């Protein structure tokens, strides 16, 4: 690993393969292989943002489900062309599935998703009641 430079997290760093984590699911719930996508989740004053690596999918393949503060993210990849016979394999391909328990009330109607180059960015705006409001402190004089 190279030294960190200029405070930027990975400037000059070299990447390494991280083994895909297969989702251990109860039998019969979903068909096919599922993997947990790597994610970044960050929070700003008015929203939570989730960034997930979901190569091989477009926004139409993604399904977002939010109920009782449980966010389920799933994305289905296409079946590879049968014409290509595998001769060497270092990674497995499959669909994506991951669940998160959110500590924030989310405004469901304003959830937005976009995908660029296999990276999903999901914006989850906080419900009005969850946005911290600044309270004016009054004094008596």
């Amino acid at each position: 690993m190279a030294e960190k430079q200029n405070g930027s997290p990975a400037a000059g760093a070299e990447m390494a393969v991280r083994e895909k984590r297969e989702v251990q699911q109860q039998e019969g719930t979903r068909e096919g292989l599922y993997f947990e996508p790597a994610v970044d989740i960050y929070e700003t004053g008015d929203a939570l943002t989730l960034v997930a690596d979901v190569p091989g999918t477009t926004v139409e393949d993604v399904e977002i489900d939010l109920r009782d503060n449980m966010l389920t993210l799933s994305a289905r990849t296409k079946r590879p062309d049968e014409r290509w016979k595998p001769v060497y394999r270092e990674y497995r391909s499959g669909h994506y599935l991951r669940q998160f328990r959110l500590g924030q009330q989310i405004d469901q109607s304003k959830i937005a998703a976009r995908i660029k180059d296999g990276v999903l960015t999901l914006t989850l705006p906080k419900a009005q009641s969850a946005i911290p409001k600044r309270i004016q402190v009054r004094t008596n004089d």
Partner: protein
Amino acid sequence: MAFTAWPAFGLDSEVARLRGEVLRSLLEPQAAAPGVFPAVNIYDDGESFLVRAEIPGVDKDSLEITTRGDQLAIRGERVPTPAEPSASYHRREREGGRFRRVVTLPQRVDADKVEATYREGVLEVRLPRIGEDKPRKIQVG
């Protein structure tokens, strides 16, 4: 003279077992050496090899693909999304950095006819076998 007949099913099952072993050794994911990125899969359709790698979030212009003989080199960089200054991170699993990988193909390929695409975060490099290495179909007269 003693003669031991092979029970037919025994030989068949041995052949099947060996074939199974060979296939498994070819198809089971090989752990990429540590520090290597990206992991690759190689496919074959008889005419060409297809090298596939999942590298979401890479700027296409940073990708550099070169071939020589039976070697394919892939270079690129994944620039991590800059953190929003006001954001607090709940999870940070996605990595960024530079990568370089050299893949040895099963045979020499025609370097002039190599084509690469980067779509939905998946890199695909198609490498036609070189003329004389192509398995030829011989007509029986």
